[in-house]
């Protein structure tokens, strides 16, 4: 009898874009992570996104306090929560490659958040779930539970970052329906079982703890407040670099990106993000009445065709069923170019992660 583990029961559409091989990017991934994961070529048309899925991973020098084992559990549970077959299979494959047996993995899956895990771990997992699926009020409650279990503010910020990064990564991979089969079947392939010790060595060899890093200046665009909240941590530099590249990328206009971010902030009832985005859209010359209309009804006669499509898509990315959002993303391909679609997915994914993160790091405890 086959073992019903993982998320293989989650319907997953065919991929919305073709992979593009970029030798420089793939070499960068190998240098940073030891291997080039199969998703990278799908993101290659939009370099900031391809780099973000590599550079924002917490295990490569971004964490100062939280242990890697807890990071992996939180990533696993959030990916399960978001029904991301690719990321879930990725974490499973990573754990398996690091020496965790298939049986032990299955036990972890069956027992996650049960009483036989330490109370601190259970609280971190509950917090991860809450940050991914609930509104700001519930997240604050989960955050208080972390404090009760003895996590300090620095640790809480790191856990919140891990969840936000997973939310971002899950959405980026899910919306484009990046094929997950390769990673799902990894522990079953004889040649991968044979090469497991080598893969383990390569993967673990690339992971390292972060070091305190001063932040040289705070950018002035939306979400800069999150960067500032991580000042002193390598997370700030990684986020800043990703945001710089995202704003500079040419496939969608600044106004279109801002509108997508504003819709997501509105849908998540994130006041801190909404205020920043309102101001940024005013600076872009968008009439306040038009913005109110867009946020209230996701449409306005003032929007161009691309903006009209993408504000609706942005709304769909807040709470989604994988197959439905994948069909919507593929439908966009009829109007948008490949790079435009990949960038739209990246912007929506990043906004969802950061907006949820802002509730924790930009609000007073």
């Amino acid at each position, binding site marked *: *009898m086959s073992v019903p583990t993982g998320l293989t029961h989650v319907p997953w559409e065919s991929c919305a874009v073709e992979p593009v091989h970029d030798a420089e990017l793939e070499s960068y991934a190998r240098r940073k992570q030891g291997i080039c994961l199969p998703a990278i070529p799908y993101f290659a048309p939009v370099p900031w996104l391809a780099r973000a899925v590599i550079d924002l991973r917490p295990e490569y020098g971004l964490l100062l306090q939280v242990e890697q084992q807890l990071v992996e559990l939180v990533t696993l549970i959030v990916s399960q929560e978001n029904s991301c077959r690719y990321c879930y299979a990725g974490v499973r494959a990573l754990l398996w490659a690091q020496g965790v047996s298939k049986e032990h993995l299955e036990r972890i899956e*069956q027992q996650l*958040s049960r009483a036989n895990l330490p109370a601190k771990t259970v609280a971190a997992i509950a917090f991860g779930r809450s940050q991914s699926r609930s509104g700001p009020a519930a997240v604050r409650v989960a955050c208080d539970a972390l404090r009760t279990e003895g996590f300090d503010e620095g640790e809480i910020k790191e856990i919140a970052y891990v969840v936000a990064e997973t939310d971002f990564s899950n959405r980026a991979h899910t919306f484009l329906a990046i094929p997950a089969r390769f990673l799902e079947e990894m522990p079953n392939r004889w040649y991968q079982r044979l090469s497991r010790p080598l893969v383990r060595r390569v993967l673990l060899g690339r992971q390292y703890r972060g070091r305190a890093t001063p932040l040289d200046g705070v950018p002035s665009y939306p979400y800069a407040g999150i960067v500032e909240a991580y000042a002193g941590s390598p997370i700030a530099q990684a986020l800043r670099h990703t945001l710089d590249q995202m704003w500079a990328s040419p496939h969608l206009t600044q106004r279109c990106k801002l509108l997508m971010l504003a819709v997501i902030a509105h*849908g998540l009832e994130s006041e801190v993000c909404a205020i920043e985005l309102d101001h940024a859209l005013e600076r872009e010359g968008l009439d306040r009445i038009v913005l109110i209309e867009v*946020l209230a*009804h996701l449409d306005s006669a003032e929007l161009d065709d691309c903006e009209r499509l993408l504000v609706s898509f942005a*709304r769909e990315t807040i*709470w989604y069923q994988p197959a439905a959002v994948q069909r919507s993303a593929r439908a966009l391909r009829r109007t948008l170019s490949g790079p435009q679609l990949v960038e739209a997915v990246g912007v929506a994914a990043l906004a969802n992660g950061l907006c949820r993160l802002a509730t924790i790091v930009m609000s007073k405890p």
Partner: protein
Amino acid sequence: MMSLIVAGSLAGLVVLAVLLYGERRRTASLRSQLDAAAEDLQHMQLACSKLAPAGIVQRLVAGDSVASLTVPERKVVTVLFADLIGYTAISEQLEAGVLATMLNGYFQHMSDAIHDNGGHVAKFLGDGILAHFGALHSNPWQCDDAVRAALAMRTAMAEYSAELTRNGLPALGVGIGIHRGPGLVGLVGSRDRMDYDFVGRTVNLAARVEALTRVHHVDILVTETVREALDKRFVLEAMPPQIVKGIAEPVVTYAVRQPQPSTASAV
């Protein structure tokens, strides 16, 4: 002596091999039982998803206590209440099996329209459907979603009725009432039986508004509260205020005329 040692060692090896084989078989058997239990659990989870929102089932399966889910949350939710028109007469004409098939088709078409537009079917009440928009997750677009769902239900109902009449069965009609207001969201019920529900006066008024569709001879009615939050490109027509049971003031309702939002505004 030597041959005795060899024979003893061989016998020991054979015993060890038998023990190892037995142990391997026991492990395989236990593993197979574990696999079956895991598969049963997954099937149960899928089955339970039909009875309660999937997210709630996942939280319960994942170990969230029922107590944590029964703490009600105060929310503003848009409630859609739908009912079959002339169901009693139809039910008297048809055999139970045919009626059940027809009803299941109706529920499926209506549920798909609700789900595709961001709603959640809370329960089937006889031939009625109670759906919520904005109960499970925050949804600032809940009124637009509910009216879009109602319009999709109107279209789906017309298609389904055409299919029924082609098969020699009576056509169906549906009345839909939509109201938005505050209430409590959470798992409610007894120790033995609970429902994930939205409770409050909002639900009652949505049901009353649905009943007014018979009075005004229209299929979709929304309240003033919904109209205020609705995209002005939906074309609405004001109906005469009407007294309904349990509400002191006459209820002002609007019939939804336009199949899809356009640039015109009628209200």
